[in-house]
């Protein structure tokens, strides 16, 4: 009964490949997020979807494309992978009310290594 789950947990791939990371939440939340954690452990938001609509799109290369088939899922597709894409990617979810300050719950992370 994991609240926020991600697959795969580890992903090792070659430069130039296309890969996807899947995220699912069973908390009934209406908002989901993708974060990137770099090698220095700094976390930065990439995207956010609220009720399947994109509400945050930070300065991320357009090789990264999020897709939300429903409120419980937010997948991340990455085209033409580059060495610099190696990082840990975290999915999170929250139930946004007034002010948008509700707690975000994080998945276990997907460790991506591009060779």
């Amino acid at each position, binding site marked *: 009964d994991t609240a926020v789950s991600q697959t795969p947990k580890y992903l090792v791939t070659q430069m130039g490949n296309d890969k996807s990371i899947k995220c699912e939440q069973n908390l009934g939340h209406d908002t989901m997020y993708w974060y990137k954690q770099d090698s220095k452990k700094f*976390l930065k938001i990439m995207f956010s979807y609220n009720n399947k609509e994109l509400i945050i799109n930070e300065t991320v290369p357009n090789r990264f494309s999020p897709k939300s088939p429903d409120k419980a899922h937010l997948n991340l597709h990455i085209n033409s992978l580059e060495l610099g894409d190696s990082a840990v990617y975290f999915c999170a979810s929250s139930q946004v009310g007034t002010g948008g300050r509700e707690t975000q719950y*994080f998945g276990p992370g997907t460790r991506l290594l591009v060779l």
Partner: protein
Amino acid sequence: AQSVTQLDSHVSVSEGTPVLLRCNYSSSYSPSLFWYVQHPNKGLQLLLKYTSAATLVKGINGFEAEFKKSETSFHLTKPSAHMSDAAEYFCVVSGVDYKLSFGAGTTVTVRA
């Protein structure tokens, strides 16, 4: 816009002694503040959060934090460190635009 500064990149304590992790924030409105913990090769777990109720917030595993508006601080403390507290700790501020802004993290090492 909002931001946080974690004043210590690394804190080392002996088991059984107090832990203090310092965090200052910047926000143009009344913020929501969080502390998350990340154990090695794990995801982020919420320790506690402040949302303009009591200024002293109690969290899980014996941690607590005090919100001080006059000092724009939200320091995290624990009276007695345990070996299992060794992890990375992130101070986080939330804005009305749904975005979380993370500090750079503090690595806690606990000596036996």
